């Protein structure tokens, strides 16, 4: 009895399989040619350690892309495999991982890593082995000066700073106070803000700092209160900026709060609560898809990616997922042109133009390995705990 039922089931399944195959063929969809050699792409991401919140969505995005490609036409008919290594958020481990991927796995190109530190450890290895590397980290140093084999997908810290200064200029805010985290991200951001402020008719009237684990910034804020600052620019990552928002509310300070892209996450809203309302910060357009022209290639890209990511993982996309997906996309598109010869692959990546990813439109050149532009960013304002595009004019 049992046997009969199961053989019946198998028959039904077989029929279904044939049906699906016939339908697929009928639609003329391209399939991966399994007889072709698998294209291996290495990836070093921070899957554990402090940077795990960055590396994990990047890994999910690459897994999704691999699935999409192998279900579709592959890369020029070749099946694709992303070989993903964990650098545990440590530069030395990242360096060891890329060496292993190049020497043992013989990958044609590498994606990663998630943080600037780990990427800077990997870059010289990629450069000397002549293997193209596309990273997901935003630190300015990675592509300045340009290393011929090193590319990136995220908008850079410099772009975010420029965006903030453009916004301040458009809002006719001439005097600002900077309050920054005393770590590398905060200090670097504050330095660059101070240097470039003049170009946008912005004067820095106060510059204060706080420690990453500080919980009370009222002393710094009361000092800023005594200056003619018309807005406060906070450069740091959670939880410091949330404490600052709460302290400003406590002190009854009403001047505009402009944050960094370090608070472009739901966590900031959760931590700061009602104090988050009114906070403005620069971020990729994908966080507010409505800010991208309806029906455009970019908007379709973002909407499709968000839908498929949600279907596979039951999670919303974030900027890190976008960086990972775009890195995979750029690499595989270049492979379609150049195959697996690393030198040709590098040339193909550098020649990438008008490639629409989730973060924006990528245009690389010999001088520009960043790909994106400041105009790919928008200013977002938090209203009632929700993100909306803040139009500068």
């Amino acid at each position: 009895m049992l046997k009969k039922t199961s053989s019946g089931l198998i028959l039904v399944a077989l029929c279904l399989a044939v049906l699906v195959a016939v339908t697929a063929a009928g639609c003329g969809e391209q399939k991966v040619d399994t007889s072709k050699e698998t294209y291996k792409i290495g990836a070093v991401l921070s899957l554990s350690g402090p940077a795990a919140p960055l590396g994990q969505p990047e890994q999910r995005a690459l897994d999704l892309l691999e699935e999409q490609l192998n279900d579709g036409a592959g890369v020029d008919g070749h099946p694709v495999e992303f070989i993903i290594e964990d650098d545990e958020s440590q530069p030395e481990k990242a360096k060891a991982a890329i060496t292993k991927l190049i020497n043992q796995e013989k990958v044609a190109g590498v994606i990663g890593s998630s943080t600037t530190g780990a990427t800077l450890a990997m870059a010289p290895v990629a450069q000397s082995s002549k293997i193209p590397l596309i990273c997901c980290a935003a630190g300015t140093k990675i592509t300045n000066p340009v290393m011929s084999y090193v590319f990136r997908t995220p908008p850079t810290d410099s772009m975010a700073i420029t965006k903030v200064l453009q916004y301040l200029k458009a809002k006719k805010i001439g005097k600002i106070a900077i309050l920054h985290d005393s770590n590398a991200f905060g200090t670097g951001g504050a330095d660059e803000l101070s240097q470039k402020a003049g170009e946008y008719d912005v004067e820095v009237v106060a510059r204060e700092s706080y420690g990453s684990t500080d919980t009370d910034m009222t002393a710094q804020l009361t000092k800023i209160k005594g200056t003619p600052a018309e807005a406060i620019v906070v450069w740091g990552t959670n939880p410091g900026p949330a404490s600052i928002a709460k302290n400003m509310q406590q002190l009854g300070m009403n001047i505009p709060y402009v944050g960094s892209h370090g608070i472009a996450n739901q966590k900031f809203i959760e931590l700061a609560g009602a104090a988050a309302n009114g906070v403005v910060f620069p971020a990729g357009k994908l966080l507010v898809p409505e800010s991208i022209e309806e029906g455009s290639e970019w908007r379709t890209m973002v909407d499709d990616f968000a839908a498929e990511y949600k279907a596979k993982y039951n999670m919303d996309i974030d900027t890190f997922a976008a960086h990972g997906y775009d890195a995979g996309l750029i690499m595989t598109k270049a492979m379609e042109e150049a195959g697996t010869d690393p030198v040709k692959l590098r040339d193909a990546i550098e020649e990438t133009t008008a490639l629409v990813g989730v973060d924006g439109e990528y245009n690389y050149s010999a001088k520009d390995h960043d790909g994106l532009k400041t105009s790919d960013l928008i200013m977002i304002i938090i209203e009632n705990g929700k993100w909306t595009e803040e139009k500068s004019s």
Partner: protein
Amino acid sequence: MEYWEFHVGRADRRQRALLVGSAVFVGLVIAATLISKGSTGFQWIVSGITVGSIYALIAMGFSVIYSSTRVINFAQGEFSMLGGMLMYSLSTRGGLPPWLGFIFSVLIVTAIGAALERLTIHPMRDQSVITIIIITIGIAIALRAVAKWIWGTDPVKIASFSGDSPIRFLGAAVVPQSFWVFGFAIVVVILVFLFFNRTLLGKGMRAAATNSDAASLVGVSSSTSSLIAWTIAAAVGAAAGIVIAPINFAGYNFGIMLGLKGFTAAVLGGLGSAPGAVVGGLVLGVLETITAGVFPSGYKDAVAFLILILVLLIRPQGLLGRAEDVKV
């Protein structure tokens, strides 16, 4: 053992002068701030008291274990971290009423504290104090790793006990949670002080730290004493972690900062003295905030550690600590 036992004070007068001197110094700093900066200065002092109460609460945990066992428990900050994170899981996420979440979180951490003492400290009771201190560092690292595994790396938020609308007076603004922290610190210091000075068990535990053989003759073995001290310290630490989390947030690695600042406060006030923990915490908090206000704010943390070094050099028994062995 001998390293941590403070040498008998030879110059009582010199020490009293130092104590009075530092009190006058702190008083002068506060007065100067108030006079030169007015209500802004007052805001710094009020904020400093909030931050200082947080340090004081953590320092209290250091004091409890130190006065009973002469061990400095570097996992004290982790108890507070666990308290905050459990409160988040039980109440903020799990929907338990806050008071019930508070009780369960404290109970769980207390049980963890007691278990850790039995599993890691007790088997090593014959080793030197310094060995046990190193074990506490290991406990701290382990607790942090477990917390990271359970709750991840993102900090979390716990709702304030009585709203977020600031209370204003004399030009300064305070969030209501600050009063909870300050009040809680006062209640805990009174309870701990009474326990160690007015109850037989408490007195016996202090005696066990000084002379374990004599204490066991009157019925308090150093083994029991250590267990009770760890249990109390875990409970105080967890409760402190919950009360400060609405101001502080909570996160797997928040115990490091809390532990360091709490330790500094405890040393400043006098290790093993409950009132000393409160005084040390408040002085540290106020000086830190004033420094952040007056000087470039980056120097703030340097102040805490400068104070720590100065105290260890000049007055290792702290502001309120006694140089002699305590009479019980």
